[in-house]
């Protein structure tokens, strides 16, 4: 048993933490997070330059990492700094591009010169791969896509959008370049886009890629869990600091036992969130993957909401303001539950093993 990070991971983690602390103040972040393209292209290039994006894929496919632990180390720091950079879309898109040998595009993305995103979900059928309605049909030597995609994470400004669509062989992955996106900022910052496809031309990477799509999504979920751990850890630090300073009734509010106990319960949730993320990281690539990832996403959903709501409450009116950094962390933590399946969706996946759920699809 050894829960310490390897030397390389510790170094990556330290480098990112220092870089983000020095270059990514909350005001800078908020400015970028809510103004099109809802992130900072310069920051993206710098982060890619530090090896952040390359950490998502293996050396054989053009990266410098590729394990679930590599991913979680990066995302924990993204969470701690409340990064609005489109890492999640890049992670999932890049995995599929690497899976299907798109070396040139992979190289450009790892180097920070291009960006990608993954379009899976559709209006009103969130998170359900069994009910994808978008279709792809072959038209001579071209493929044409039909249907709608919604909530494509990190898509605004992306050069390549991978689209999941039904084929007669199963679920396919298709490559589109600068497709017509309808972009918006998310409530917690960062961009999202919809895509309406009416015979949109695309390149077929695989006509039957269910397994690879599941893996990319599960790795995305692990990333979100790690991001939540980083964000929650920072939010609790902010809360403790605030409580020490804030005076009420002639004393610091950190001296009130009723309030102290609530922070301790937040801390218990944080430790549990960290542990279940470790469990999911360890299970990635094993037969236990789907179940452990869902256990993690479910617990993170519950813990994130608890920690956020308590943090806002303990800050009083300050916690409700745009001005206050903690409020943005709280938003992000709650909204992570809305990404790639929430606590209820994943509860379902814990109860019904995925093998059964996906049978016959």
């Amino acid at each position, binding site marked *: *048993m*050894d*829960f*310490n*990070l*390897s030397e390389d991971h510790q170094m990556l983690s330290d480098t990112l933490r220092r870089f983000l602390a020095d270059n990514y103040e909350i005001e800078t972040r908020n400015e970028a997070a809510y103004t099109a393209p809802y992130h900072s292209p310069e920051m993206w290039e710098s982060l890619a330059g530090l090896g952040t994006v390359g950490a998502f894929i293996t050396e054989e496919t053009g990266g410098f990492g590729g394990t679930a*632990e590599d991913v979680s180390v990066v995302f924990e720091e993204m969470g701690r700094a409340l990064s609005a950079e489109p890492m999640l879309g890049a992670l999932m898109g890049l995995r599929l591009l690497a899976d299907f040998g798109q070396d040139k595009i992979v190289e450009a993305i790892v180097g920070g010169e291009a960006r990608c995103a993954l379009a899976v979900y559709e209006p009103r059928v969130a998170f359900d791969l069994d009910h994808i309605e978008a279709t792809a049909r072959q038209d001579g030597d071209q493929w044409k896509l039909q249907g709608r995609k919604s909530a494509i994470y990190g898509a605004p400004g992306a050069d390549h959008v991978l689209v999941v669509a039904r084929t007669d062989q199963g679920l396919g992955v298709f490559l589109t370049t600068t497709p017509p996106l309808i972009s918006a900022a998310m409530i917690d910052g960062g961009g999202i886009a919809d895509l309406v496809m009416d015979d949109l031309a695309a390149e077929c990477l695989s006509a039957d890629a269910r397994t690879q799509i599941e893996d990319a999504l599960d790795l995305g979920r692990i990333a979100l869990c790690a991001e939540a751990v980083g964000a929650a850890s920072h939010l609790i630090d902010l809360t*403790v600091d605030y*409580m*020490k300073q804030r005076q009420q009734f002639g004393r610091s509010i*950190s*001296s009130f*036992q009723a309030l*102290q*106990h609530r*922070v*301790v*319960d937040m*801390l*218990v949730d944080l*430790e*549990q*969130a*960290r*542990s*279940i993320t*470790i*469990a999911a*990281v*360890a299970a990635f690539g094993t037969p236990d993957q789907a179940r*452990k990832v869902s*256990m*993690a996403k*479910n*617990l993170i959903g*519950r813990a994130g909401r608890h920690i956020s709501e308590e943090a806002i409450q303990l800050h009083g009116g300050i916690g409700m303001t745009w001005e206050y950094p903690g409020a943005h962390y709280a938003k992000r933590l709650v909204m992570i539950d809305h990404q790639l399946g929430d606590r209820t969706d994943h*509860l379902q996946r*814990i*109860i019904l093993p995925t093998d059964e759920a996906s049978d016959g699809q």
Partner: protein
Amino acid sequence: MDLEFTEEELAFRDEVRSFLKAKLPADVAQAVAYGKELEKEQILRWQAILNEKGWVATTWPKEYGGPGWTAVERHIFSEECALNNAPRMPPFGLNMLGPVLIKFGSEQQKAEILPRIIDGTDWWCQGYSEPGAGSDLASLKTKAVRDGDDYIVNGQKTWTTLGQHANKIFCLVRTDSEVKPQAGISFLLVDLDTPGVEMRPIRLLDGGYEVNEVFFTDARVPVANLVGEENQGWTIAKYLLTHERTNIAGIGFSTKDLERFHELAGEVIRDGRLIADNPAYAARAAELEADLEALRITNLRMLAKTKDGAAGGVESSLLKLKGTQIRQELQDLYRSALGPEAAPVADDLSENELTIPPESARAAPVYFNHRKLSIFGGANEIQRNIVAKELFRG
């Protein structure tokens, strides 16, 4: 990062498993599975079997007769015991007094007392709490006044667990009332045969007798029975509490209880379908399973952090808080899944003629009994105070 046990640890786990399989008496395992109070004879019989193997004093170093295990080995042992329905050995002599004597006792005390703890000759119980001093131990009032070579002890102790089986008690007593409360306390060993010492049972809400109150009326206790120095009791008590908190997360118990729920859910029909197919129950069980899996990792993380296994204040408090919440929640889930069958209390479960299985008949009493988990060993509110003190330091 490596979440797995080492080869040696896995081999140790196999050894523990086969030992339990071969040696744990069936009647003892059954009593544990039913949630029954064990008889003294059953506990001592199991202790003798463990003693033969050298596995009684699991927290002691080798030179005093312990197995010299690492914290991880101790963890594995207690998990396997729980999963196989082995009874938990009463911790008072083995995990509390033993380590205290090893650290603070005189050579004579170590030589005389430790072997008798291991072989079961002495059954120690704990005299810490008083009617007015529960989690706030510093306010204890039981007095020991020096008179020649004796202390004269007066006062009352309470919540003395399994005191009905004991022949000895270790107590915290006030030896100086003039100084600040923590400074005037001493750690004293008392023979329960001493004139002026009387033990009375307290019946608990589940109907059982697990705890007692102990009255001291001019009881004469030799000064030689003092552990450490006079007025050093607070330091000793704090040291002891960190030992009390080993295995505090109770992962093995919860794992077993979750398993038990799933078995029940595959048998019991409510609203026309098995409980296993009832989404409301499935959801409760699944979230608890996620909580338990996280706690299992949290526990291993904290074990890896503390080399000697005596978890620091904050770590053990976090484990106690979450561990007891999960255990209590699991008892509630099981009780609730039983529906009306949770109501009866059969006198002798092994021979009961009810159509309800004995382990079900004990579900409600065990649930009520488990309310104690968040109260004893420092109430969960006290654990929160300990963590908060660290969190808001400076």
